[in-house]
């Protein structure tokens, strides 16, 4: 009977779990879920709701994929998809979400945290006293005594306040209550059952600051390494109205956009990250930053991106065509050398170029002053045109190896017989280049050109590291320079030297995203077009 009962179960196990490997999968899934679940719980506890929702989605997704036989093919991509959700899709949604909040200076924490922090604030009532303290701990570490000295020099020994019992003051008489001899500072050297704690030991004790000492009606708490005082909570929170009331004088603080504000503009610290609707967008649209240098910056942004692509592509193509010449010697070594700029981290290259362009100390100006025998070389950082030229030169250096690689590959794929036919027909080398090489090349390289354009359109590293967007535009009332592109300009608007405002920055980045999205769309259009060209050829 037992056998017949076991049979279907075993079958079930075999069917759904597929033996030992399935069991291992199940254990791993449970462990991973446990880990992620714990992480999610922490996030929820700290009030990071958007992120915890993402983690819940990922947990459900992973568990489903690894346990459901239906979703077996998805297993190969599960980790990748989870990473995509976490690192790509979530940041996009989070940016949009942030754009509607005041996340930034004064508003860095969640509402739960802010309320907790405000509730922690204490005040000393007018009749309240402050003391210096020394703590004593019972041998089983569960109870404490506090030796206090007020400003008049009177000393007290207080027991812990527990429940409704209230602590008590103990007379400091040697021989009574187990109190031993008094030290030089008037504190007992020993108290029976209790050990004197040194300052650091007391500071490490996490329970100590939370304990109330002395009589119930006027409890004393440790407030700092030096002071214990008869403190009371300063602000009482009313969850129903979402307001704080000052216990000292009754002032009411209302929640205004994530800051509890009282009459006369008084604000409680800290504020929290609050939803403020369209305010960030409103601020951007009406900001002086939009009126002023934006047109100059957008035009330069397009010019910069276009010229960067054009120049790097031209140079890269020219070099790979040169390689195509069979009479060319030492190709391999030269190619390796020419690839070097591509292998060095671009930030380092930018900083090296920046040093070379330095008007006073840079090698470029040293050469210019020596060769042309002039007192001073051109001011690469302060002259608008020169700074722009310098940036294009640096970008050319950074970008040509990429197109050299790409085009040399693409050139191989163009069939040689077309050239032979053209030669037979008497086409000149230039004609061959423009009529055969370039159109065929663009079929395969075209999308890459657009991608490179978009990359350079948002090439924040180069602009920011080279001269920080400078030189400044004289007519601009906001921080803006002649080499600033949109992304570096909005960075200055949102961060710059004027504090941190993630909410505002998110709102602006949505605008930039819109521009880039339009260009990506164009890319798809162009890609289709070239494909058609390709088919025709």
């Amino acid at each position: 009977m037992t056998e017949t009962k076991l049979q279907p179960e075993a079958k079930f196990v075999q069917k759904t779990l597929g033996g030992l490997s399935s069991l291992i999968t199940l254990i791993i899934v449970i462990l991973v879920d446990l880990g992620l679940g714990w992480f999610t719980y922490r996030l929820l506890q700290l009030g990071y709701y958007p992120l915890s929702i993402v983690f819940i989605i990922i947990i459900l997704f992973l568990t489903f994929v690894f346990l459901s036989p239906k979703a077996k093919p998805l297993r190969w991509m599960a980790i990748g998809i989870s990473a995509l959700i976490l690192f790509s899709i979530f940041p996009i949604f989070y940016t949009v979400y942030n754009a509607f909040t005041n996340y930034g200076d004064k508003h860095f924490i969640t509402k739960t945290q802010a309320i907790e922090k405000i509730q922690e604030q204490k005040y000393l009532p007018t009749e309240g006293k402050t003391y210096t303290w020394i703590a004593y701990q019972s041998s089983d570490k569960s109870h404490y005594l506090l030796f206090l000295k007020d400003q008049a020099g009177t000393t007290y020994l207080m027991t812990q306040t527990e429940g409704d019992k209230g602590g008590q003051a103990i007379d400091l008489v040697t021989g009574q209550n187990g109190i031993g001899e008094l030290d030089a500072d008037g504190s007992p050297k020993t108290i029976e059952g209790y050990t004197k704690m040194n300052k650091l030991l007391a500071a490490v004790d996490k329970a100590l600051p939370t304990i109330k000492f002395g009589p119930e009606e006027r409890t004393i708490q440790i407030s700092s390494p030096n002071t214990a005082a008869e403190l009371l909570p300063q602000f009482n929170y009313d969850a129903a109205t979402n307001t704080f009331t000052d216990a000292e004088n009754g002032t009411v603080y209302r929640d205004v956009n994530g800051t509890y504000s009282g009459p006369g503009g008084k604000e409680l610290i800290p504020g929290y990250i609050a939803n403020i609707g369209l305010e960030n967008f409103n601020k951007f649209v009406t900001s002086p930053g939009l009126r002023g240098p934006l047109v100059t910056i957008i035009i330069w942004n397009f010019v910069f991106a276009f010229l960067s692509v054009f120049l790097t592509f031209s140079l890269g193509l020219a070099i790979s065509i040169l390689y195509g010449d069979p009479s060319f010697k030492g190709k391999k070594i030269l190619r390796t050398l020419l690839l070097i700029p591509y292998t060095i981290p671009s930030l380092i290259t930018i900083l090296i170029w920046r040093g070379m362009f330095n008007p006073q100390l840079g090698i470029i100006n040293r050469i210019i002053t020596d060769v042309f025998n002039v007192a001073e070389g051109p001011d690469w950082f302060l002259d608008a045109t020169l700074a722009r030229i310098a940036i294009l030169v640096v970008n050319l250096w950074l970008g040509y190896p990429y197109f050299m690689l790409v085009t040399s590959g693409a050139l191989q794929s163009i069939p040689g017989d077309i050239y032979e036919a053209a030669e037979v027909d008497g086409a000149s080398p230039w004609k061959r280049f423009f009529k055969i090489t370039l159109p065929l090349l663009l079929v395969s390289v075209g999308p890459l050109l657009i991608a490179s354009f978009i990359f350079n359109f948002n090439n924040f590293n180069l602009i920011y590291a080279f001269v920080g967007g400078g030189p400044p535009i004289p007519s601009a009332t906001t921080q803006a320079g002649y080499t600033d592109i949109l992304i570096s300009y909005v960075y200055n608007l949102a961060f710059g030297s004027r504090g941190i405002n993630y909410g505002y920055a998110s709102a602006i980045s949505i605008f930039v995203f819109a521009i880039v999205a339009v260009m990506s769309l164009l890319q798809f259009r162009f890609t289709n077009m070239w494909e058609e060209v390709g088919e025709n050829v």
Partner: protein
Amino acid sequence: MKKSYLLFAIVVIASMVLAACAAPTAAPTQAPVVEPTKAPVVEPTKAPEPTAAPVEPTEAPEPTASLRIWADEQRAPVLNELAAKFKETYNMDLVVENVSTIRDSFITAAPAGEGPDIIIVPHDQAAQLVASGLVAPLDLGEKEADFSPSALKAFTYDGKLYGMPYATENLGFFYNKELVETVPTTWQEVYDISKQLIADGKVKYGMVLAGTSYDAYPWMTSQGGYVFGRNAAGDYDPTDLGIGKEGMIKFATMAKQWVDDGVLSDNLDNTTAKSMFLNGEVAFLMNGPWELNNLRTANAPYAIAAFPDGGVPFMGVQGFLVNSFSKNVLLAQTFLTEFIATEETMLALEKADPRVPAYLPALAKLDDPDLIKIAEAGKDAQPMPAIPEMGKVWTAWGDALTFVFKGEKTPEDAYTFAAAAIAEAIAADTKGMVNVPGSWQAAGTAGACEDWKPECPASALTEQDGKFVGTFTIPAGDYEVKVALDGGWAVNYGVDGKADGDNYKFTVPADGEVTFTFDPESKLLDIKLP
């Protein structure tokens, strides 16, 4: 397949529940519970044991806690050396982490519970962290008297101390002592010496500026220039902007003249300026103590003097701040007052990275001649403004000098334009503000506002149910008041809600609370007297 879904659901739910159960042990919010069951262990019946050995108070605590500090690359190595000593003395670990963007990283790390217990930042950055509630107030106890009062003031916000200062930083007037024999005390002397040195072919330029704003400030102040004026209490007043005023323009005119005469280099880049001084291409440079180690390593023939014509630099104060989200706030504070605030530690910090100590016992023992000179140059230094408005000043203020040097603008145009841009940026913050400026402001805000200041936040009304309300305690007397919007006089309402109308007049019979209520519909102001 149904069963597999069931299994799936069970696994998910079980792991969530397990995770939730497991979590509280690690949750930081959990408060330690005081056992209420046990009675106080005071037993008066028991005879005292006179034999009990005195408890050694210096006994090392168990290494249950450790402290994490974020410091920049200059200070981290010093603190790392101290960590070994700390471990030896207290048997506790001090983890020093070298973080280059302390403020920005701290802002995200602290609320997430990942921040360090202590950070070291200059006081103007601390202001922002305090306003965001990320820093715990400090109580230095009796050690407070050992610190320079001006340094303490720099870390005091709203009457509370939030940082323990350890060093002050300000510029000094550096000169090349091989080239300059007599120390100049006026800018005219600097000019004459420079001219002579250039004529003798000893230097390329007489002087170079290491920047356009902070690094040129002592020259500006010597000509009467300033950024923000100060009110009676000594606090910076953002409504008194000195950028477009005479002193600043006088400085720029002078500097431009020097550039045209070839005495001053037109370079404004910090690194370049320092290299030029190090290479002996210039004789004079206004520079700070952070450059001392470099100059010493290079064996540069430098010396330091006070600024010509009584120029004063800005003063920055470096200090230790305690993370308000730290689980060891008390320990961190104890560490600061017991271990860092000692003559030995403070002098060790000073030796490793020369800065003028803010700790007076260490300052008294200061024997570094360069630092003594720096301290002298900064004896009247103005604290770097820690008000948020300062953030809106830097770029426009600095760019003005660039335009002057390039000849794109006259000094007057450049600085008045910069002042207008800064004023506009500051005003953008008060957009939407409803204020009731008047002759009551100073008396009714305990001096936080001056009278008739429409941009003063302390007298602003707050929105309640569509109306703007504010209650202030005003002493008895006769007053006048008006309603002003957006922190300026551009839109203001007087009696009967008339734009640019007459002032409201009111008399407070006895000291008491006056409530102003502004109705944005009718533009009328209601004044409720006590």
